[in-house]
């Protein structure tokens, strides 16, 4: 039979004759975890153990049409007479598409051959709710109650849970995208404050919280003690790496987002073993219902500045060839502008991939969504976003079982060399 199982499943099945599916009760998942970790040891099947994937989230529903502007399409200007980006201002990179004028950083990345744009990304039966749609992008399983994040499942299936901090999420709260059954993602916002305060005697007592790992009858208490253990073992490294980091690269003034990427660069520079990084905008920043022109321009500028700086920074560190970036949003916006110089929630939008010139095949992928053949005023998606996930998983990270991780078969784009 063809095995649609993950490598972990395969190993466990081979060794113990028992399959471990992802819909398993957590209890059982844990009991097999120890066995699996043993099985993983000494069986290095990683094609690219040095490769890092950084995922960037533009929360709030980025207006894709004003980001990657179809400057040769009259339908665009008909739908957006007041907020459309005039063709003469667009940073044109092809005869038909170009970037918002504030995205000078992206124009440079594109022209340097370090960037791929995927047209029309979305999914069937799209939800126009921020929260539902974002959870679909986070889990990679639209219109279902999947409890784990897609990056969490990548880690569950391929990364050894005995190695700490293989997933890092920069933020004040953990994203569903990194929720994992076997890994505890390291989540922090300000590395300088990632520490226990106190005298040496106090710290000595504080350091042992949770050291006796005996499970209690209170699952929430167990969750807290295991988090305390993780914090105690990781905080010094992260804090020192971040404090020591100096870079001449200018990340611009979009502090939170650029700052997050700079923290990632600091950890890469310090040799952190993290394979999956997650950085997001806070508070639905891209939800531009009203007067979107200025605020959207500013957000795009911060974004382009930060991504361009980050890629330059990792190149400076000599790690350009090991780092790829993927950027997404939970939906694009309505094709037609609304009455308040803004746009309402929509469906498909572009996704972005970045990497070193000799790693990524720069250019545009997928078919542009039609601006005239619409579904109730919204774009019909042309690329299932999970094809882009599959591309990152298979072509970049080198894991072939994308259909297990993504719970469905999705082709890849051929975007990585």
């Amino acid at each position, binding site marked *: 039979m063809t095995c649609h199982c993950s490598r972990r499943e395969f190993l466990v099945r081979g060794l113990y004759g028992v399959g471990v599916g992802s819909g398993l009760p957590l209890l059982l998942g844990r009991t097999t975890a120890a066995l699996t970790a043993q099985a993983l040891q000494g069986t290095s099947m990683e094609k690219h153990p040095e490769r890092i994937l950084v995922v960037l989230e533009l929360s709030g529903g980025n207006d894709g049409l004003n980001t990657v502007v179809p400057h040769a399409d009259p339908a665009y200007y008909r739908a957006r007479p007041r907020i459309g980006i005039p063709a003469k201002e667009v940073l044109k990179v092809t005869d038909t598409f170009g970037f918002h004028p504030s995205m000078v950083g992206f124009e440079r990345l594109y022209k340097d051959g370090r960037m791929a744009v995927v047209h029309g990304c979305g999914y069937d039966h799209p939800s126009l*709710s921020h929260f539902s749609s974002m959870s679909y992008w986070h889990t990679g399983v639209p219109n279902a109650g999947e409890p784990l994040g897609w990056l969490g499942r990548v880690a569950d299936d391929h990364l050894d849970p005995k190695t700490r901090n293989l997933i890092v999420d920069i933020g004040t709260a953990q994203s569903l995208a990194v929720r994992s059954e076997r890994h505890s993602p390291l989540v922090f916002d300000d590395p300088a404050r*990632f520490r226990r305060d106190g005298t040496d005697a106090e710290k000595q007592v504080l350091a042992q919280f949770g050291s006796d790992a005996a499970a209690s009858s209170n699952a929430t208490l167990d969750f807290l003690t295991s988090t305390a253990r993780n914090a105690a073992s990781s905080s010094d490294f992260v804090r020192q790496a971040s404090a020591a980091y100096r870079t001449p690269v200018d990340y611009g003034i979009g502090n939170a987002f650029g700052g997050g990427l700079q923290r990632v660069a600091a950890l890469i520079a310090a040799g952190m073993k993290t394979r999956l990084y997650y950085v997001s905008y806070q*508070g639905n920043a891209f939800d531009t219902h009203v007067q979107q022109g200025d605020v959207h321009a500013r957000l795009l500028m911060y974004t382009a500045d930060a991504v361009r700086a980050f890629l330059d920074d990792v190149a400076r560190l000599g790690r350009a060839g090991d780092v790829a970036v993927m950027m997404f949003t939970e939906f694009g916006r309505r094709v037609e502008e609304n009455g308040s110089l803004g746009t309402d929630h929509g469906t498909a939008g572009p996704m972005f991939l970045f990497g070193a010139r000799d790693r990524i095949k720069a250019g545009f992928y997928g078919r542009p969504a039609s601006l005239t053949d619409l579904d109730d005023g919204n774009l019909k998606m042309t690329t299932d976003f999970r094809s882009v996930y599959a591309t990152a998983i298979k072509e970049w990270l080198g894991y072939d079982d994308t259909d297990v991780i993504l719970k469905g078969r999705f082709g890849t784009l051929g975007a990585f060399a």
Partner: protein
Amino acid sequence: MRRLLLCLGLGALSAAVLAAVPAPSASLPWADDLSPISAADWNVERAAHLLERAGFGGTPEDVQRLAAMTPRQAVDALVEYSRVDNSALPAFEESGIWDRGMDPFPPSRADAVRQARERGEALGVKALPEGSQRRLQPVVDKFFYGLRANSIETQRLGVWWANRMLTTKRPLEEKLTLFWHGHFATGDAKVRDYRMMLRQNEMLRRNAEGRLRDLLVGILEDPAMLVYLDNGENVKAHPNENFGRELLELFTMGVGHYTERDVREGARSFTGWTNDVLDFKFDRDQHDFGTKTFLGRTGPLDGTDIVDTILAQDATGEHVAAKIYRFFVRDEISPAVRSELGRSFRNSGYEMKPLLTRIFLSKDFYSAPSTATQIKSPVVLVISTYKKMGLTALPTIPDFGRLTGALGQTLFDPPNVAGWAGGRSWITPATLMQRGNLFRDVLFADARTFRAPDRLMPATYARVGENIAKGMNITEATKEGTGDAESNQQVDREEDYNTRYASYRGYLMAFERTKAIPRHVADLNLTAMVAVAHADTADAVVDHFAKRFLSVPLAAKDRAAFIDFFRGKSVASESDLRELLYLVLSTPGYQLS
């Protein structure tokens, strides 16, 4: 076939593993039982649990008062709070930052500039004569003043509310207001008008234990919400769906019970519902009086019809009751409890008091899965600690807003319209450490090194002032970065004004015109506290702190480590006691209520 066999095998295996623990009915006898607990089952622990959840906890004396009552009396004492005189609480004292020229406040800096170009003035400030250098600078300065002053005033509002939570005689009133603030989440970062935020807060408090309909109508006519969800822009010709969608998805029914068409028809019904600065306004010219079909009802519906149609749905009672349950009881709600609470909530005409009374009296509320299983929100964590310390005024060193903000919760600024996700989402490795550290800042507060955030200018802007003082011109003084980033080049590209200089000026003006938050450290006396409790040995002090502050038993290993830590220290030393209390408040278990 292979799959099927595997599943069966796994099922058997899971059953075997589960069988190793006692059957749920034996270990969790009261879970999901909504019948009231009897007076015979009432005790100090249960009274403490009630006060933690229906309020912000309290001192052993506060708990004892409730424990001495019957369960019904104790619940009534909290729920029937309108009988309690609370008039001693002070009203918010405004600084008076707003002048008439600032209304309506421009939506963006660029918009203020546009107005100034067209009319020669904006925000009540005139542009300089044509030909002057940076002729729009005063307008942009005023715009940034408005932003900064409003942000400071909103910080003051947060301190005012936190003080209410700490000192109120009606703890459930403030807890409910906090619940509704998260439910009808509205953030000042977008509203940019503390006056609207204050009015909304008062409206939520006024209706907190009343009827859901009054809250819904109140919030749908609330200027802060109308601005937050862009309903001022929801006009006949171009309906804006933000408001109609969140009303259905978040405020009332939850996803899955309505269609996209209902969203659009709902939005049409709310066209013209807008605000004239601080007042609700129905704009007839922008209202769509046409026929709509919403959740099966057809007619020339308006916003109130939409509310009443929503209230007629089963989904509404269940969605809102379940959210209240999750806030006050526990994260998981069983389908049976959900449907029963939803049904009775709807049948009561969506009266809050009977629902709350039933929940707080139920055996389920006192069952094992409901006690010491809730992770405190940052606001509850800080306020309840102050309550347990017996404080009667909110410490402002360290700053309350900064403490809770660092943990992911700022009053008047929820992360988005869905409010705070709560539960385990509060906890990351970093916030868990911070949740301990903040109490060191409280217990060892240092007024000399404290920097008040309401008087703090970010370094970028402070540098502008330093550079100007050194004699640089505005262009030189506002340079930052190496110049690669587009955003750093734009600061001074505009000839008519310099944004970074304006931001610096705005801060200075805001500091001048806002009242400073009075700063003082916690008025805490642990020596007296342990003396009253007759705790005169290391063991006794550790046990007293654990009993007074923790909802879970202290782990034996931690207890031993604390006693060991206190060896050689003295119960008569305030700083020794504070070091010990810091450790107790830093335990993972202290996050639980």
